[in-house]
């Protein structure tokens, strides 16, 4: 029986549990033996001109090696300009007038922006010396929020003439909602979140003998190398990037960012190895944030529950610099209609800059925002026509006989069973009984009211499938194997899954399969991990490499066994090559591989299936709302997350668990907030309400596997399903709990203050 699909515990764990991982700050490699520490001096003001920087006192402080400002950056080529101005609606960062410096030059645009670097022999010395760097700021009016940005009264980039970085125009079909009995419109805030990987950003770097080595906490060593090569004007061959153990990424560690580039630059500039690991407070201010959309949804249909038209307008706050944030609403628009068969769909978006931390990917990257919008809209529509929201979904979900389904938003959904996912969840949750209990509590006027939230979703994974992913497999003379993967693990369990794929195809015990990732000297070509792409691209690459190696080995085994290759078979249970029907005279992998010659059995695959895949599912959240205090408690969370064929249920469930928690966190707790002057008011873990074990129940996961048809593993992506499905389910549950008061919408996060205010307002207006 194949090991695929079975519950295999992780090979990574004994080391992580007994010795701990080796994250960047844990590296004790000789190249960093004399490394100095980097401490950043960051802007305490959201928007200001820099009129002077005095580093003289800091330079005299104990242990200071160097203090560097933008004036010291005289040895880099001009930043690569991709020529984008924003009007193309194309991927970002934008160049030209929107360009982002490495260290602030004459203006700061968000609290946390790096202004100077202090380099000290020891770690505590840096904080002392950074206090001595004196920066003269001339404050400018901060641009916070959509209205301030669009008014253009204060501009972040005066040469650009506007705070509007990208626009697709506005949908104008005046007839779009003709024929609808009912039309509902709602403004929705999809609030700004901090990714908070438990390991913050960290980098170390050393320049020696014409080669730059950068250790960085990154999801993509190879992309990191390209970014470094562009920034330094170096040949990629002169750069080695290592992503060692990485303590979570969630999209915010794609490539290398500004701060890590600076660490690498400074190491080269002063000719000394450097280390940097940010504090959590720095992390909350200067690692990219996610989400930050203001949406206007409009939905219309018949009183019988058929939805006929849907419109989504987005204003994406991309923070101070238009990086990847400018691309997120494109992904939101792509998935705007979700799993519904709706005849008329319109989307439009605008991307604004504000004096806040730049926005980039955060688990889901544009797709949770799409699902949150359409799932709220469906509930609003259901409330307006007085129909059960689950029934409205059942009426409008794309039926199974319509796949592949061409969405009016562009994508072609590959495979799905959306109605079945909904019904499976409703049955497992005991939906009818939950509604009955809700009715009883309402009847009694209980303080604790129940809310049932349903969210159906379809998402896009490996949206950039054309980028492909690499794998190199080598079978060694002792019968062991090594996989070099271009994909990059930071908790997902690649090492276990990739070894399982090798064992399944070749019969080499996974204990004999070493998986190597995240070192561009060993793996120059690769893409890395984001967008739930790893298994369906990187995993398939491993599988294909195993198939190739198997065919090479067949020839070698034929030679050994003096038989025709066509007569040979590989017993994948035992890892033995044999003549069909003659197991007694078999040859082991060690015999075959050593006969071939050391490391001759090897294959390199750069795989793409050329198309994304479309996982889907339904989440149901059950919450209890204390109608006297507004406090929300999640009681149950039941889900189907169908991501095609599952290689290892343990890993897939783990991805779902983590995503659900982050989704619930957005719905109920977390928000990165700023005051009107652009000061972060949730800039530490004291204030940023990161979700804890005490706020969550155990989750109820239901199995469902509808294989993808475009790749041989049948796999789709699972990494982001949780945030996509759980967020609207939990939000809808809160609204559902208080809907009997006439409340139709509560923005996220549904904090006690916000829920209590909604209840109070509703009761007053009655």
């Amino acid at each position, binding site marked *: 029986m194949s090991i695929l699909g079975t519950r295999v515990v992780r090979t990574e*764990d*004994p080391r992580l*549990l007994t010795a701990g991982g080796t994250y960047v700050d844990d590296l004790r490699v000789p190249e960093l033996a004399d490394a100095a520490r980097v401490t950043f001096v960051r802007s305490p003001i959201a928007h200001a001109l820099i009129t002077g920087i005095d580093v003289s006192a800091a330079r005299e402080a104990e242990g200071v090696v160097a203090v560097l400002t933008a004036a010291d950056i005289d040895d880099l080529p001009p930043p690569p300009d991709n020529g984008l101005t924003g009007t193309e609606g194309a991927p970002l960062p934008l160049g030209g007038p929107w360009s982002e410096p490495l260290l602030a030059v004459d203006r700061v645009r968000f609290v946390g922006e790096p202004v100077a670097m202090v380099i000290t022999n020891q770690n505590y010395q840096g904080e002392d010396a950074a206090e001595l760097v004196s920066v003269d700021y001339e404050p400018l009016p901060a641009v916070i929020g959509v209205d301030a940005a669009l008014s253009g009264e204060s501009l972040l980039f005066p040469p650009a003439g506007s705070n509007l970085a990208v626009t697709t125009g506005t949908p104008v079909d005046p007839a779009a909602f003709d024929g609808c009995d009912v039309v509902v419109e709602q403004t929705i805030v999809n609030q700004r979140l901090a990714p908070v990987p438990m390991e913050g950003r960290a980098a170390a770097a050393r320049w020696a003998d014409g080669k730059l080595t950068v250790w960085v906490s990154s999801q993509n060593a190879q992309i990191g190398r390209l970014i470094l090569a562009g920034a330094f004007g170096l040949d990629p061959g002169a750069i080695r990037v290592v992503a060692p*153990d990485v*303590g979570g990424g969630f999209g915010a560690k794609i490539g290398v960012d500004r701060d890590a580039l600076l660490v690498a630059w400074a190491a080269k500039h002063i000719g000394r190895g450097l280390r940097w690991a940010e*504090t959590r407070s720095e992390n909350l201010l200067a690692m990219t944030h996610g989400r930050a959309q203001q949406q206007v949804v409009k939905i219309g249909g018949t009183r019988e529950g058929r939805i006929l038209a849907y419109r989504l307008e987005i204003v994406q706050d991309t923070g101070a610099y238009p990086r990847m944030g400018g691309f997120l609403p494109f992904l939101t628009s792509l998935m705007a209609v979700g799993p519904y068969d709706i005849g008329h769909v319109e989307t439009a978006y605008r991307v604004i800059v504000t004096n806040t931390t730049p926005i980039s990917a955060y688990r889901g990257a544009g797709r949770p925002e799409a699902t949150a919008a359409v799932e709220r809209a469906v509930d609003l529509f259901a409330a307006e026509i007085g129909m059960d929201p689950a029934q409205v979904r059942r009426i409008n979900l794309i039926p199974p006989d319509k796949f592949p389904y061409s969405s009016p938003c562009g994508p072609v959904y590959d495979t799905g069973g959306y109605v079945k996912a909904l019904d499976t969840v409703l049955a497992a949750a005991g939906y009818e009984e939950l509604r009955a209990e809700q009715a009883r509590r309402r009847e009694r006027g209980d303080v604790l009211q129940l809310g049932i939230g349903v969210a159906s979703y379809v998402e896009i994974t490996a949206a950039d499938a054309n980028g492909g992913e690499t794998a190199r497999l080598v079978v060694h003379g002792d019968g062991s194997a090594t996989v070099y993967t271009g994909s990059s693990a930071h*908790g997902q369990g690649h090492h276990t899954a990739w070894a399982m794929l090798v064992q399944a195809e070749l019969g080499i015990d996974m204990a004999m399969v070493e998986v190597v990732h995240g070192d561009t000297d060993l793996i120059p070509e690769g893409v890395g991990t984001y967008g739930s792409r790893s298994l369906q691209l990187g995993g398939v690459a491993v599988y294909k490499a195993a198939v190739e190696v198997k065919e090479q080995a067949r020839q070698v085994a034929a030679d050994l066994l003096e038989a025709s290759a066509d007569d040979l078979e590989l017993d994948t249970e035992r890892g033995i090559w044999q003549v069909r029907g003659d197991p007694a005279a078999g040859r082991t992998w060690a015999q075959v591989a050593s006969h071939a010659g050391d490391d001759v059995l090897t294959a390199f695959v750069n795989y793409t299936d050329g198309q994304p895949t479309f996982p889907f599912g339904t989440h149901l959240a059950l919450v209890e709302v204390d109608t006297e205090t507004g406090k929300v408690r999640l009681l149950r969370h039941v889900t189907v997350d169908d991501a095609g064929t599952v290689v290892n249920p343990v*890993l897939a469930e783990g991805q779902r668990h983590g995503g659900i928690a982050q989704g619930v966190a957005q719905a109920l707790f977390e928000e990165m907030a700023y005051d009107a002057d652009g000061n972060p008011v949730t800039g530490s873990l004291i204030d940023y309400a990161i979700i804890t*074990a005490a706020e969550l129940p155990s989750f109820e996961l239901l199995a469902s596997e509808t294989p993808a048809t475009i790749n041989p593993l049948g796999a789709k992506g699972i990494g982001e399903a*949780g945030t996509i499905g759980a967020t609207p389910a939990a939000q809808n549950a809160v609204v559902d709990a208080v809907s009997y008061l006439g409340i139709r919408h509560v923005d996220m996060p549904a904090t006690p203050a916000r829920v209590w205010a909604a209840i109070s307002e509703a009761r007053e207006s009655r």
Partner: protein
Amino acid sequence: MRVSVTVNGSQVAADVADRTLLVHFVRDVAGLTATNVGCDTSSCGACTVLLDGRSVKSCTVLAAQADGREVVTVEGLAGEQDQMHPVQEAFRAEHGLQCGFCTPGMVMAAVSLLAENPAPTEEEVRTALEGNLCRCTGYHNIVRAVLAAASDNSA
């Protein structure tokens, strides 16, 4: 100042700055890097170690306060022949870790919890681990691991 701490059974002594935190003493002086720093507000618990048998957040303790006392980190949990501690075993069996960064602190917090309450309910586990943050697992399998370790204890 001179600080001497027994770390995982070995005496570690050094002259350190007065303000040296215990977590930095463990990482940089004792050279044990499993214990991580995840925040600067004593919120996350990644740095949890046992100090004289009770869990503390080692970013909130000065090395000087640990002088003459005994510290156990996750590296010191395993028994003879590197036999994993039952809590470590349970975390592995239940997939109670993903990226691994919170794990050393989480395991030490769980060890401390089970020492105080050998048969906790799920709710007690969740409350006890409130000060240990994990961003990967949604806590689901961490809680299962702690409950499994507890039931193995009593078996």
